[in-house]
């Protein structure tokens, strides 16, 4: 089985969010970038397929050279090869277009993407690549088994979960649950050394048009201080929630 894992290069959750150039660009100053958490669960599941059932695992990112350390980290975790599509990730559709080209060229059976990236939270890329490549699609996927060309998946739904069957080629939008958190791997020295020798191919983008454009960013207004209520005066809390906040 040929597996492609889509890797988004995102600011670590604890990063301070600031903007530059008249609030039009994300300020990367002092920001640590990581593999998008939802993608890390997917990558780990791909490693499981590789080790238990035999599969080749390619990781891919659409982005500039600054994303290569994130791809190298994925190689150090155990992916066989990496592809970087050399263009700025301007919107979900543009990314999906580039990834679909990689998928068509590489003939992958299973594409694992994260449910959403933690920077733009669009949740659009997995479904769009499924739509563009005509593959089956399971979103919010928390468990995946593949046998031959058949797949069984469990996905989270509002208020519960659902078991589905489908077939390859398949795209999933994965998340926590695909593997246990304790199974996530930290690259060791050997992995890091081996990653240096693994191929990281840079491919040039295909032409696309931006369907959406980011005009600018805004930050929420600073929050007022908390109103503390004594535990002995909960009538006051009920009163505030009813009369001031008007939420009960």
């Amino acid at each position, binding site marked *: 089985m040929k597996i492609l894992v889509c890797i988004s290069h995102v600011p670590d*959750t*604890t990063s301070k*969010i600031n903007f530059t150039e008249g609030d039009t660009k994300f300020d990367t100053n002092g920001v640590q970038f990581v593999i998008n*958490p*939802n993608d890390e669960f997917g990558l780990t599941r791909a490693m499981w397929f590789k080790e238990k059932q035999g599969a080749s695992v390619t990781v891919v990112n659409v982005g500039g050279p600054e994303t290569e350390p994130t791809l190298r980290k994925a190689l150090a975790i155990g992916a066989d090869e990496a592809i970087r599509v050399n263009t700025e990730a301007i919107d*979900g*559709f543009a990314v999906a277009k580039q990834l679909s080209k990689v998928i068509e060229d590489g003939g992958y059976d299973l594409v694992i993407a994260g449910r959403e990236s*933690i*920077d*733009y*939270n*669009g*949740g*659009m*890329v*997995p*479904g*769009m690549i*499924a*739509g*563009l490549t005509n593959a*089956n*699609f399971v*979103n919010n996927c*928390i468990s995946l088994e593949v046998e031959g060309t058949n797949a069984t998946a469990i996905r*989270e*739904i*509002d*208020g*519960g*979960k*659902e*078991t*589905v*069957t*489908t077939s390859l080629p398949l795209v999933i939008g994965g998340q*926590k649950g695909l593997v246990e958190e304790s199974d996530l791997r930290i690259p060791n020295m050997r992995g890091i050394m081996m990653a240096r020798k693994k191929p990281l191919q840079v491919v040039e983008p295909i032409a696309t048009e*931006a*369907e*959406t*454009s*980011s*005009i600018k*960013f*805004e*930050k*929420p207004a600073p*929050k007022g201080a*908390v*109103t*503390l*209520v004594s*535990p002995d005066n*909960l009538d006051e*809390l*009920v009163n505030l*929630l009813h009369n001031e*906040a008007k*939420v*009960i």
Partner: protein
Amino acid sequence: MSVLVYTESEQGKFKKVALEVASYAKAVANQLGTTVTAVTINASDASILGNYGVDKVLNVTNEQLDAFNAKAYADVIKQAAEKEDAKVVIVSSSADSKYLAPLLAVGLHAGYATNVIEAPSSTSPFTVKRTAFTNKAFNITTINTDVKLVAVSNNSFGLVENSGSASAEDFAPAIPEFGVHVQSVDKASDKVSIADAEIVVSAGRGLKGPENWGMIEELADVLGAATACSKPVSDLGWRPHSEHVGQTGKPVAANLYIAIGISGAIQHLAGINASKVKVVINTDPEAPFFKAADYGVVGDAFEVVPALIEKLKAFKAQQ
């Protein structure tokens, strides 16, 4: 040309988010000087949609569509959009709508904006405000394509009543091959789901063990709220994973979020920042959650929660 909105239902009944997206669609239609058409799938009575600004309803009734299927539903909405020559298509941010929307965007060649929280500030160019960086910022986005697809963030626009009535029409679209087949569904049907809830009562590791959730459920019952939890709580198996909120769990955009015995780590806040009013109950006055909260009680959950339940019961009895 009209604005098309997909109004989701469950067992025939419209979800609250359906009425919210209908309200949103009406606001967009007013800006564009046009009408709103809703598409429903196996909904029993669509007349209520008129109260939220819908002018016309396309009712799809088809047993094959009893269980949600993203590809088929996306295709049905696409056919409805084409029939109506819709230039703007609106969906909610429920798990189902966010599943089908990217497929619909590809099908319609529509630029797609997610997590939108306000009516467009301009319709030419079509400009919307959406949340980004797990609610730590907003992004102003324009959609450049002829057809636009907008996913409205739950509980962001609210319900806006419009006295009107909708005309109804049966619509029988072609149904594509499914590709993905549902085998079984495991869902607590008697409970308010986190996505639909206006009030969410959430508890963390401060509750000490699963045996102490009775009072959390009782508080949720009194308020008609959904229950939720922090990540360690679901990791420890005290509560189901479907209740885990936060960056790696579910997003919550409730009107009121009550956090009990939750420290307020940044990954937890990432999932609940979009909630409007936050109340924190915690023994530790230094808990980071107090910085994000609107109202706080520094106190022991085991004393505060039962007392709060009594106060709320008395308050509800007076209403």
